[in-house]
């Protein structure tokens, strides 16, 4: 168990006022909110901020946390004192949606509680709809796929404590589904009340990162390394596609970063996306004496005609 320094996470001192804490959280939350920040680690940072704020904004939780901090002598990497988390009781004014993921440290101290399952609108006849995020492979969007999806469902036991049950669903992933879209599975949400209809389950689609392809909506991008002479003279090269391969002809005189469009080779749809091969001119790492001579000959041949820095000539 690792001690979490929530003050450090929010960048405030231990005697920070409630206003300081709110201010620090809001500023950092704007910076790292996954809807606003597309960096890969933004989501993890944002979750850590949320957890720190959840504790420090609540006077009861903050007091308990400060107390634990005092007893946890000798720094965060030390093992915790026995019963470090025993005997704290909370009124349970839970903030979030009760599905938020917390660190082990948080759960050991504050427990996993159902808490604020969002208040349902008055007179709503149906059970709650559920949401989950799932990652699929890019190829699944090209071909469609049948995927077993494992979901962790928070369930209340007889004592009213929250535990995670596991549920597996076999889902037919439709061809052409894109990142950020939602799949609706009718009747797979909460069971209905008193024989009423069950809620639906919504799966938000994300793609596993692919070593070669980047995806933007329906379009797919591939960095395609080419030799300088291939870019200069033109060439015919084999290019992998998410669902096969193609021979692409590179026009002579192609500059670095030139995008070659393969129409309709993006994610399939009524109007399918395109695939763009982005040329990256690669240079050989080393050169033998003969190869260096060849470069020198090239330099000589171009000496008079090619001045790439003509526009920034130093007088």
């Amino acid at each position, binding site marked *: 168990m690792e001690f979490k320094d929530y003050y450090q996470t929010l960048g405030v001192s231990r005697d920070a006022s409630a206003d300081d804490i709110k201010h620090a959280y809001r500023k950092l939350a704007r910076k790292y909110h996954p809807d606003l920040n597309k960096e890969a680690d933004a989501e993890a940072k944002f979750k850590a901020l949320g957890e720190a704020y959840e504790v420090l904004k609540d006077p009861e939780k903050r007091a308990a946390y400060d107390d634990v901090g005092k007893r946890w002598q000798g720094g965060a990497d030390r093992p915790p004192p026995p019963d470090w988390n025993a005997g704290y009781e909370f009124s349970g004014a839970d903030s979030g949606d009760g599905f938020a993921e917390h660190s082990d440290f948080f759960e050991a101290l504050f427990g996993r509680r159902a808490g604020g399952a969002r208040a349902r609108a008055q007179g709503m006849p149906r059970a709650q*709809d559920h949401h989950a995020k799932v990652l699929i492979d890019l190829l699944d969007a090209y071909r469609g796929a049948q995927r077993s999806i494992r979901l962790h469902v928070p369930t209340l036991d007889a004592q009213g404590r929250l535990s995670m049950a596991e*549920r597996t669903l*076999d889902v037919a992933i439709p061809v052409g589904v894109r990142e950020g*879209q939602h799949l609706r599975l009718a009747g797979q949400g909460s069971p209905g009340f008193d024989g009423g209809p069950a809620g639906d389950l919504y799966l938000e689609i994300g793609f596993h990162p692919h070593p070669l392809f980047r995806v933007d909506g329906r379009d797919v991008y591939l960095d395609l390394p080419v030799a300088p002479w291939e870019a200069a003279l033109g060439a015919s090269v084999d290019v992998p596609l998410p669902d096969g391969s193609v021979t692409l002809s590179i026009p002579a005189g192609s500059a670095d970063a030139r995008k070659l469009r393969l129409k309709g080779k993006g994610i399939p749809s009524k109007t399918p996306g395109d695939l763009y091969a982005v040329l990256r001119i690669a240079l050989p790492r080393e050169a033998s004496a003969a190869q260096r001579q060849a470069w020198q000959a090239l330099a000589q041949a171009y000496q008079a005609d*090619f001045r790439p820095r003509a526009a920034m000539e130093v007088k």
Partner: protein
Amino acid sequence: MKGSTLSVLHCQVVEEEVELSLGELCQACGAESDLVRQLVAHGVLEPLGDSPQGWVFVGTSLQRTRQAMRLMHDLEVNLPGAALALELMEQIRQLQQQLLTTARRPRSG
């Protein structure tokens, strides 16, 4: 094994195949109908139809509503603030798209 006997579930892509009524959208997002009405009033959602009873929301409304709710909850901003953020995010997305399609044409040497 758990789950081995389950049949394959078929689903709909909400953004492409689904239209939602006010009640369905609220249900799907866990939102109060008052919040959705305000999102419409602020132009974040643009349903077809004249009255709330007749509103028809396109499938992408689900993403937008959830995003607005996340922003309001996580950043502690009010609805006009979330609406502004969503509009700016959409502008950034469009600019990035433009940049991608017009970026760096090959120079003549």
